[in-house]
């Protein structure tokens, strides 16, 4: 058993899944950081009082970098700029080992200055070190391009364990969220939770009450959300059965015929897209979706990318006059 457990974490696979997570997740973080800058919130968030609200207003020891460089608006801007630059370089896969480590340190420093955050911040602090330990730069990156330019062979297999851990993290996150839900998410509360959130002025994107006509649909979406989250621990099983056509007996046949794995993924994606359209939760839905490539195998990603490329090529080669 131990040998099989060790072998599981020793597996290698093509780099497409982790590379896509790197681009999308850190891309979402980059947009988040840039939007704080565009909204004029950098001083407020990361400069100390009275100029800002840094240190979260709590009595904590001075953060390490701030202790070295002094607590000021300049330090706040420098930390933010370092995080932005490191994010951009990580997205492009430039000197990945170094820039991904700098990004981890920069985000920790920003968090020390401003401990107040939400769920997606907590996820960022977990995902970034995992990505930094991975070889997510092995394809679709400057580093890979540079390696090819120097005549070195491409890296076709990288350690798979960071993707497995991201998979476990997502599954656990959804299940943990489901365990916390109160009555409004269930039949006793009439599955009113999503409608309630859209009535909450702090979270609703549209004026609260605007979507009252859709109330039955919102109740259905509450039910779907709960089904999705409660069934999350089954996602690894469905994935395993989906990839092994000869395994699982009748259950395996059913899972493959009903495409349960893909139905679960589609439900999750639609949940996050629904959140993105109707609620104001910043990068939360996008950053969550950015982790979905970790739920897919590299060959599936490569096939999807090839199809997209073929579609794009067919569109670009069509004669615009005849259309």
């Amino acid at each position: 058993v131990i040998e099989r457990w060790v072998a599981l974490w020793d597996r290698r696979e093509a780099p497409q899944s982790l590379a896509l997570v790197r681009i999308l997740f850190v891309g979402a973080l980059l947009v988040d950081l840039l939007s704080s800058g565009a909204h004029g919130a950098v001083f407020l968030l990361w400069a100390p009082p009275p100029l800002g609200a840094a240190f979260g207003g709590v009595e904590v020891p001075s953060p390490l970098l701030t202790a070295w460089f002094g607590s000021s608006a300049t330090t706040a801007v420098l930390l933010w700029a370092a995080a932005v630059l490191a994010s951009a370089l990580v997205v492009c896969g430039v000197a990945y080992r170094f820039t991904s480590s700098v990004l981890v340190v920069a985000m920790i420093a920003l968090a020390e200055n401003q401990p107040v955050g939400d769920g997606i911040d907590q996820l960022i602090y977990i995902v970034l070190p995992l990505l930094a330990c991975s070889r997510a730069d092995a394809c679709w990156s400057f580093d890979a391009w540079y390696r090819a330019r120097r005549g070195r062979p491409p890296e076709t297999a990288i350690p798979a364990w960071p993707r497995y851990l991201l998979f476990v993290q997502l599954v656990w996150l959804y299940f943990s969220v489901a365990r916390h839900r109160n009555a409004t998410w269930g039949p006793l509360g009439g599955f009113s939770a999503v409608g309630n959130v859209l009535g909450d002025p702090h979270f609703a994107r549209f004026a609260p009450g605007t979507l009252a006509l859709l109330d039955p649909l919102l109740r259905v979406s509450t039910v779907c959300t709960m089904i999705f989250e409660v069934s999350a621990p089954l996602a690894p099983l469905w994935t395993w059965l989906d990839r092994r056509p000869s395994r699982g007996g009748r259950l395996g046949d059913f899972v493959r015929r009903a495409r349960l794995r893909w139905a679960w993924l589609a439900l999750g994606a639609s949940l996050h897209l629904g959140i993105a359209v109707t609620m104001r939760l910043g990068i939360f839905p996008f950053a969550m979706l950015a982790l979905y490539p970790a739920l897919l195998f590299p060959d599936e990603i490569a096939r999807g990318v090839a199809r997209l490329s073929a579609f794009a090529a067919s569109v670009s080669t069509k004669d615009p006059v005849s259309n």
Partner: protein
Amino acid sequence: MILSVQVRAVGSVWRYLRAGGITLLLLLGFVGGWQPIAPNVLAKLPARLGALAKRVPEVATVLLRPFAGVAGFFRITSEDWALFRGTGGVRHRLWIEARGPRHRSFVLLYRVHDPEHAYRKSTIEDRRVFNLWNAHNWGVSAAYPHFARWVAARIFEDYPHFREVRVREEQVTIRAASQGFTETGQFDYERVVRRDELRP
């Protein structure tokens, strides 16, 4: 030959070390995700099981203590994800007001979902700034007073005639059937900042 054998041996040890480290990480994550059992659930459990369940947070703390330094460094506080735990009931709506020396009543400058009162809306509604003032069931963040002072400072810069700024959150009741909310006229988390307080 000898070097190749040595490299293979180190590689083999590394495989086990890595698998052990990942196993430890998974176990710590699992323990960090243990949710304290709600009192109503505890009451339904048999006495011995209930007494055991009550000790879950204490046991988790003891198990995680040796690793708290590393987790703290990476800002990983928990694997217990309580997102949108409860919805409906009484929620809050942020108001920002100001008044001059001769005005008895405050002038509304910003209110959530109020297009006519949208002072510095893009900054105030930035995702990270939102976390500073958004009221939870347990209250507002420790940064809320600093947020109030920051807003007051900006208002005093933009409107030299104002002398006082008031930041507060109105209680609103979420209506059934996705009908939105009802204002209650009751306010929480009121902070009043006077211009002379902000002078250096």
